[in-house]
């Protein structure tokens, strides 16, 4: 393995690094919003929309991101929805992540103790007030660990973006290998780059989980 080669490839990897972060960021924010909406529909048993969200969840969870991306990037233009590779990538990540986030959030809502719901009802809260002041604050806290796991999962999924030629980290590494045959060096930098993102992030998320729990439940 050549140190010089590694050094020379740093700038191009740095660009890919920021792009991976950016795509992950938008994808994850979008997924959390979509997940919130879907779990909301399910919690309040909103007719019709709830069924739509159930179908979405099934499709999203039971198809690979690869196929979802192909659909968004290659099939959608056929029906007049054209977008850049980047936009397609973010959309794919949101489509995939939304259902995972919905499961995580709904799981948290279901985990709120029955006695909490009952004591909310006992002081005359409406269903909406119960959700707003009791179930959602406690349930979202409970769902933080599952949300955190999904955040890591979704960042790793961005490596699939390479199939629609988005120059994120994995794509860049494969590119470097294809162009210069610097296989060892490129894979090495790739692993380091993912580690730089994922290891601190997972530490931050663990800390956040503990803080959220302490804030809401005191343990």
């Amino acid at each position, binding site marked *: 393995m050549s140190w010089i080669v590694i050094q020379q490839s740093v700038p191009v990897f740095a660009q890919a690094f920021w792009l991976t972060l950016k795509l992950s960021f938008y994808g994850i924010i979008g997924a959390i919003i979509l997940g919130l909406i879907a779990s909301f529909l399910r919690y309040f048993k909103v007719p019709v929309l709830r069924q739509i969200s159930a179908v979405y969840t099934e499709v999203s969870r039971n198809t690979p991101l690869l196929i979802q991306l192909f659909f968004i990037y290659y099939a959608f233009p056929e029906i007049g929805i054209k977008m850049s590779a980047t936009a397609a990538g973010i959309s794919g990540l949101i489509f995939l992540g939304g259902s995972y986030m919905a499961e995580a959030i709904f799981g948290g809502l279901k985990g709120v103790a029955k*006695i*909490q719901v*009952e*004591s*909310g*009802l*006992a*002081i*005359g*809260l*409406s*269903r909406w*007030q119960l959700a707003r*002041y*009791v179930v959602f*604050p*406690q349930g979202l*806290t409970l769902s933080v660990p599952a949300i955190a796991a999904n955040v890591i999962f979704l960042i790793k999924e961005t490596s699939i973006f390479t199939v629609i030629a988005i120059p994120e980290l994995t794509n860049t590494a494969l590119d470097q290998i294809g162009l210069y045959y610097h296989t060892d060096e490129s894979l090495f930098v790739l692993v380091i780059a993912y580690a730089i993102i994922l290891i601190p992030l997972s530490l931050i998320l663990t800390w956040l989980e503990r803080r959220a729990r302490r*804030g*809401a*439940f*005191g*343990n």
Partner: protein
Amino acid sequence: MATPLLQVEHLEKSYGDVHILHDINLTVATGSVTVLLGPSGSGKSTLIRCLNGLEDFQSGQLTFSGEPVTPSPKVWQKLRQKIGMVFQSYDLFPNLTVLDNILLGPLKVQHRAKAEAKEQAIKLLKEVGLADYQDSYPRQLSGGQKQRIAIVRALALNPDFMLFDEVTASLDPEMVRGVLEVLRNLAQQKMTMLVVTHEMNFAREIADQVVFLEEGHILEVTPGKQFFENPQTERAQIFLNSMDF
């Protein structure tokens, strides 16, 4: 006779195929204390939960302040402001401070002015000896303190009727007294109450009437003093003998 605060007529309750409550008839006079006694599993909690709509029932009529109750989520939501309930487990909202726990109902449900509601909350906290804890979180309190605050939270809605389901049963013995003291004061202030308890000495002291329940049947409704000295049924006598007090 004055209109009773609560009247229960021919209430029947099942969980699926299992019949839990049989032909429950019960009258609670305004300002009186009713103690509900019976062995474990006799249906005390189920009955008390039917009275504020946490459980539905198959048939029977409830009349509250002379108004027949037609059970629906809306009706119950309104009525629950008039019927406070405190459970066995200390069920404060862990994500809210003591004061916010207490004010949630008055502010969000009853839309009262914050200053007035807060003043009342603090007055109630003083009465239960916990005025210093308004900004604490539930996790910082002992079981007995939490239970007293749960009582305050229910009282803050100015209910006409209070339901207590074994509110001292999961407390350490040294915490029990403080909570019973709060109930005793309420009784003195002529709050109408329905109390499930295993504290027999306390029951004897505060009960205007005792309702004795076994296997979902009310076996007797007897004035408090008389029940403890000379119950009408043999089953109740056996129950009393089995209780160590």
